[in-house]
């Protein structure tokens, strides 16, 4: 099968969607599919949202790559037509991400030889164009939206329009499926694929002490970890405030690991001044990331807008208990194998952190159950098999959704659905 993925960024760029797309594409290539990824030649996240001139970063990418059997074609972003973007906003369309003449042209050409076109995100220009390219070539379209409920760019009509016109919608959790069904997406086009994690490479037993020494912490310091992009939607101020409140009861250090954004660089002085002992660690090699995770006492993902949260699986695989916000897909993913806190409530989060630090046996039991779930249900081969089912769904409707003038005719109007038909 010839699969074309269209996504804004691809590793070495760091992010949940990037990791999911790469994990899936590699697994598809391992199954024998011919996989091409069309993406932008962008590594730094800030470069996705504005086209201000930037100096070189610690990583740069060229026009093509071969990544474990996956052909990656990277395209140069184009200058943003700001006046048009602003005019579109007035009409209620928020164009996310960067436009690229090269990517748009390559998508039109590559869609012709694809058996399935797989779009990533529902709120960015590259996906809207990818849908157009697939329709012109009469190819089935699957989209993975990584839907963030409540985020205005995901909730806008243009995003919903794309989701309704895709032949299949691949979601990462049952909660995300419910969320999209509640927004008028037909159940038979929703396929739950979950996510995978790479096999744990294992870390030496002395890592706990070594990581604390490297971070400049005493050997017995309690370590609360956050791993991920340091972006505004991740609710990091809530985590820092909670850590500061928990630190009044017992000493702890909060370690924030991941690539910074311009927002984070501006916010860091305030976060550090909050009273919590915050250790800021940039994007580090995988070995260092795994070591921090293995040395942590608790992993917290404070964001309320996640479509899954791969980091929970990584933490469980490393034997670390987790805390997530009781919102959307996160509550579904964490379930009974971690603690949940009221989204945006630092007091509740501080209580959850202290509960796990004060009762390590309880946390260890949760992490063991989580690790068992990871082994049982979260391999990339399973994800690839589920996505193959989505392509079959897409192929079965193959362009019919668009040809019929859009699913709006067949599916329930949103107003009716929101009154509880599920």
């Amino acid at each position, binding site marked *: 099968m010839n699969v074309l993925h269209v996504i804004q960024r691809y590793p*070495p760029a760091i992010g949940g969607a990037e990791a999911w797309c790469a994990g899936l594409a590699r697994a598809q290539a391992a199954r024998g599919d011919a996989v091409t990824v069309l993406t932008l030649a962008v590594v730094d996240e800030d470069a996705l949202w504005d086209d201000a001139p930037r*100096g*070189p*970063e*610690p*990583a*740069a*990418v*060229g*026009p*093509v*790559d*071969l*990544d474990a059997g996956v*052909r*990656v*074609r990277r395209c140069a972003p*184009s*200058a943003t*037509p*700001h*006046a*048009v973007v602003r*005019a579109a906003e007035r009409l209620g369309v928020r164009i996310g991400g960067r*436009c690229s*003449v*090269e990517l*748009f*042209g*390559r998508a*039109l*050409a590559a869609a012709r030889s694809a058996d399935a076109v797989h779009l990533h995100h529902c709120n960015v220009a590259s996906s809207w164009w990818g849908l157009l390219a697939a329709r012109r070539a009469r190819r089935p379209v699957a989209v993975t939206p990584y839907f963030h409920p409540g985020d205005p760019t995901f909730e806008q009509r243009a995003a919903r329009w794309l989701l309704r016109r895709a032949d299949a919608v691949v979601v990462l959790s049952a909660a995300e499926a419910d969320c999209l069904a509640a927004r008028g997406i037909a159940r038979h086009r929703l396929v739950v694929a979950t996510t995978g994690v790479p096999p744990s490479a294992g870390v030496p037993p002395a890592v706990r002490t*070594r*990581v604390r020494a*490297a*971070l*400049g912490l005493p050997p017995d310091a309690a370590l609360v970890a956050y791993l991920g992009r340091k972006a505004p939607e991740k609710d990091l101020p809530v985590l820092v405030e909670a850590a500061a409140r928990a630190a009044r009861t017992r000493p702890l250090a909060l370690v924030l690991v991941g690539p910074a954004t311009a927002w984070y660089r501006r916010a860091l002085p305030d976060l550090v001044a909050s009273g919590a002992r915050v*250790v*800021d*660690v*940039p*994007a*580090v*090699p995988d*070995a*260092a990331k795994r*070591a*921090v995770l293995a040395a942590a006492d608790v992993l917290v993902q404070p964001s309320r807008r996640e479509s899954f949260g791969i980091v929970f699986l990584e933490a469980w695989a490393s034997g670390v208990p987790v805390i997530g916000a009781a919102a959307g897909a996160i509550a579904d993913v964490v379930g009974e194998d971690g603690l949940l806190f009221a989204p945006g409530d630092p007091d509740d989060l501080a209580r959850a952190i202290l509960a796990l630090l004060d009762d390590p046996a309880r946390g260890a039991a949760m992490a063991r159950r989580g690790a068992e779930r990871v082994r049982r249900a979260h391999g990339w081969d399973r994800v690839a098999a589920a996505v193959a089912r989505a392509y079959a769904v897409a192929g079965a409707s193959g362009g019919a959704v668009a040809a019929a003038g859009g699913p709006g005719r067949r599916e329930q109007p949103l107003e009716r659905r929101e009154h509880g038909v599920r």
Partner: protein
Amino acid sequence: MRTLRRLRWLLADLTRVVRALARVRAEARRPDPPRVALARLEGGPWAERGRPNAYRVRVVNEHAAPRPVVLRLAGDADGAPPLETRGAHVIPAAAALDLVLLTDWRARFDLVAEAPSDDALAFLAPREATGRCRLSAVLEAEREAPAALTIAQPLVR
């Protein structure tokens, strides 16, 4: 007056969008032949002068036959003389070649096949940047335009 100015911006942008759409059509018709290219140039979050720093370089050959290439690397760090190295390699058919540049940002500047095992935990310690270093890679292959990538990092003591 302001409305008029905004209207002018909008018209100018719309003209640009129309031109861009024409370029999209041209791009769609342009052949996309296999090529030999620099795929990645990556370093750690920072470099430390006086210790070995590893940089990953990936060269990709999309052709159905092996291709010889010449890879040139040049680096400069604040206040130090420029460093350079070059190597000739044959990239197997439809494959990627991963190489590693090792430098101490003083004198050593070697292209090797594999990075020595290093202490990844070193990147966890908070460090203060004292300058910047810059690394460029240029790839030359027959019948291909030279390709270049550049990265920069904070330099710590």
